[in-house]
């Protein structure tokens, strides 16, 4: 005799992740069109990505080429849109190339910190027990130390450079992911459809991969998009303080660090890289806020 189990009922709160791809993309743009802040954020991010991919072909000057005969030219002189710095390098070109560094750092950090934090969060939230206790103690301890200071100290100790700043940021950043994902997993575990799975004899890993992981997609995306801005500003701060990305690399924080000595004579050195950081952070934040609001209502609304 076979017993017919009822189909696993998906509670209304759970988003059906395997939607038609086409419709998901259409929905994305339809939602985006409703919010002008979301559109602005999206456009800024799009421009940023395009610049960081194609930047090396659109820069008017070599961003690393020093020419003392042209040093500290104000904007709009000698073909230099945003002027030149103390070594005669073209600031516009440097800012364009700096975008790439910011994007690489933001994305790599979120990838590393996000992956590691998510794994820890899932282990903690799904398997509970002493593992959970130990991991969450570690998270608590780390969260009780200022993020930017932690990144600074780690970076100062392990040394500067692009790779090391990413590592430092990731070490500082994974805890947020672990914390949030853990609480998401805990909440999901309590959902009726998971209980139903357990009751129908689906294995622990089956539940984890088929039911819990897909539903973590949304919180991970939201959190990642909100964190990238933090990472980009943190990197700029660390580089500004003389750690992080080192000269002559045209990181925006770097440029501000070098430019600050000329603040009384050449304002453009400190103005434009800062504006670049601000617009980038603004775009990422706006987009992240919009994404959170949209996906949140989607979660609640259906």
């Amino acid at each position: 005799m076979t017993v017919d189990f009822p189909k696993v009922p998906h509670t209304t709160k759970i988003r059906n992740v395997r939607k038609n791809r086409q419709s998901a993309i259409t929905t994305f743009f339809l939602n985006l069109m409703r919010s002008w802040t979301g559109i602005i954020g999206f456009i800024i991010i799009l421009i940023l990505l395009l610049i960081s991919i194609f930047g090396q072909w659109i820069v008017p000057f070599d961003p690393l080429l020093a020419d003392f005969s042209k040093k500290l030219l104000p904007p709009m002189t000698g073909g230099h849109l945003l002027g030149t710095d103390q070594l005669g390098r073209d600031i516009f070109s440097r800012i364009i190339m700096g975008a790439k560094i910011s994007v690489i750092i933001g994305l790599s950090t979120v990838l590393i910190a996000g992956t590691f934090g998510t794994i820890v969060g899932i282990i903690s939230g799904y398997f509970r027990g002493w593992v959970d206790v130990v991991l969450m103690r570690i998270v608590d301890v780390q969260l009780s130390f200022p993020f930017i200071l932690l990144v600074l100290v780690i970076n100062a100790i392990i040394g500067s450079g692009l790779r090391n700043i990413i590592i430092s940021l990731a070490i500082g950043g994974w805890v947020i992911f672990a914390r949030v994902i853990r609480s998401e997993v805990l909440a999901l575990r309590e959902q009726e459809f998971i209980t139903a799975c357990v009751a129908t004899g689906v294995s622990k890993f089956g539940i984890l991969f088929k039911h819990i992981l897909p539903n973590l997609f949304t919180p991970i995306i939201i959190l990642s998009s909100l964190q990238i801005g933090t990472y980009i500003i943190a990197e700029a701060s660390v580089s500004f303080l003389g750690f992080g990305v080192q000269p002559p690399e045209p990181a925006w924080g770097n440029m501000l660090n070098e430019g600050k000595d000329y603040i009384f004579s050449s304002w453009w050195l400190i103005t434009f890289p800062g504006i670049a950081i601000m617009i980038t952070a603004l775009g990422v934040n706006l987009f992240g806020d919009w994404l959170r609001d949209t996906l949140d209502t989607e979660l609640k609304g259906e």
Partner: protein
Amino acid sequence: MLDFIIKRLIQVVVVVLLALTVVFFLIRLSGDPTALFLPPDASREQIEEYREMLGFDRPIYIQYGEFMVNAVQGDFGQSLRSKEDALPLVLSRLPATFQLAISALILSLLIAIPLGVLSAYKRNSVFDRISVALTVLGQAVPSFWLGLILIYFFAAQLNILPSGGAGSIVHLILPMITLAAYSVARFTRFTRSTMLDVLRKDYIRTAKASGVPTIRLVGRYALKNSLIPIITLVALDLGTLLGGAVITEVVFAWPGVGRLLMQSLMNRDFPIVLAGVFIVALIYAVINFIADILYAYVNPQIRVK
């Protein structure tokens, strides 16, 4: 309540000790600092002699044990450069950091809470929209850059405020504004959304049905309900403020712990770094501890059992 306080105090101690441990090992694993004290052409014997003198030749767990035993007694050794005692040096810089951080905190709360409340009260008005736009912008501006811009305008161009240093209240103005800016944006935004949340609650409707005027409803009732989440956020953000203080201190050459810590990191002057980490972790843990107590005080569901 006493149980709660004791539990939290133990947590403070654990956090501080763990922070020290992690930084200690990070430093030791990152390389031998002896080389930094000697000229590049120092002979092998000289290096060895120096290592022995500083105790870097012994096994790391003995170094760690000795360090921790001394650390809990407040002895972090001497600065590798100036030979001053590390902890007293850090402590001597503490008042300046406190002055900066507390004044920035007060400034940001004084601006953010009324602004957020008013924004929620006049929801969707022009005032509200401008305030929301400013907070979004404020959260995107890196504080060190804001500091540079302020220096440019008020010191370089207008020449009415000093660009750095300390000594008088005038010196405090720019660093204070720089440090407060991000918090103002964040707190305003949060106050607004919390107030909007609270204003939708059933008990606000009850108060309204009792004939309470809107001004009193917002300023007296909803505000007190909002204070619980606001205090929580402010406590969580004090770390960011403290971190921001480090950067602000460097920008304005403000003689606080942050600037000292930065210089020591640059010079790999590790006794001072460790003493600095110790102090920062301690302050942060204590602030969180106070915030928890404050939280319990505002929330009668915790206070009265």
